[in-house]
């Protein structure tokens, strides 16, 4: 006997919703550089956690920036989770305001490891140069 549409919806609606969320996560990973660990795509433990990615700003201590400014802390966290252009711009803008510099250079590096040689190095994911006059 064929299953009624209502029953079909009740049985498979929620799993399909879960698949839609996974598809959205894939889309954000491909287009917005969303980290695999986040977004409901179940990509945890597929690569080194984004916590170990390094934000590097020449001439500026990232630790002291984060300690003193909650907005920067949140912006840096989002930059590590999804290092797209918008998050780079937001982070750089906040750093420019906090440091009162004329220009700023923000880079995001991720760990890279070679299991044959044991070499551990850092690879640049993306970077932004922002000048005060661009704001």
């Amino acid at each position, binding site marked *: 006997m064929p299953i009624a549409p209502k*029953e079909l919806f*009740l*049985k*498979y609606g*929620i*799993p399909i*919703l*879960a*698949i839609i*969320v*996974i598809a959205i996560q894939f889309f*954000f990973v491909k287009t917005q550089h*969303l980290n*695999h*660990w*986040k*977004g*409901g*795509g*179940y*990509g*945890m*433990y*597929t*690569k*080194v956690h984004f916590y170990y990615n*390094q934000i*590097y700003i*020449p001439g500026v201590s990232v630790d002291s920036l984060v300690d003193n400014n909650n907005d920067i802390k949140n912006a840096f*966290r*989002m930059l590590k*989770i*999804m290092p797209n252009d918008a998050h780079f711009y937001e982070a750089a803008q906040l750093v420019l305001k906090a440091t009162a510099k004329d220009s700023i250079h923000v*880079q995001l*590096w991720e*760990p890279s*490891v*070679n*299991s*044959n*040689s*044991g*070499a*551990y*190095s*850092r690879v*640049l994911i993306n970077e932004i140069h922002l000048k005060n006059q661009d704001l």
Partner: protein
Amino acid sequence: MKYWSDIQDTLKNNIVLAIQLLLFFLAVYIFITGEKYGFWKSPIIVIILFSWFFLRNKTKHPITWIALFALLVFDLYLFYFRVANHHFVLTFMVLSVVLCFYHNQSDILLKNIQMLLVVVVAASAIQKLMSSQFMSGEFYYYMMNRGFVFNVFHPLFSESLEIAKSNSDQILELQATDPNIKESIVFANVFPNLGLFSLIFAWITVVVEFIVAMAILWKPRSKWVHLLFIMMILSILCTRLETGFMALLAICGMFLCRNLKLRLLYALIVIVCLSLIITKIGFH
């Protein structure tokens, strides 16, 4: 023995028990994550507690569960890209329970849970298969050389732990330098042939996840499938204390399992995981 017959009576109604465990998990999870935007969450929590104490089983609508679902969706709305993956699983499970109060058909609830479990485990395997860092074994190589996995066995391997600590110290020193200079360090392996071990372990992980997903899809009530699923949960817990996610998987297992002894095993996994979450030894 009377205790055993009491336990058996409780285990016989596995759906009720699974829903109780889910409710308890939610209480712990909300207690830990409720701080952010607490001002907006507290009225919802008031509704949850009031409806639970005074109106449960007395109204047509499952107010407690609807409010719990609202609370989870609230966090999803605010922190969609920040919440853990099991927050999504939890939200879908709660939605399944809410709908069950309306359709009143346990087979639909069980189909929801079964397919959700298949989607979650299969997606996890596919994501790993698509990651070159994982499939080359480099991810596990990194994690083991830093002492981030198999923490439960660390007391037995103090020498390896020392090596992992020295690797972490080297990384800290490297982090203090300008990455544009392109300096690198070389890990000391916590045990010999770690590269090969990591590669094999990575492939085993993916194969086991695929087999478990397909087995749950094919025979969701089979004793052997649940035995395999329990072994997967226990192996993950030994690798890393992902107690939050594993408690949810065990609750899903409890919903689907027919065997009383395995149901007891699922219940014990959830109880131990919850205890580790509450004491903050495990992840929530």
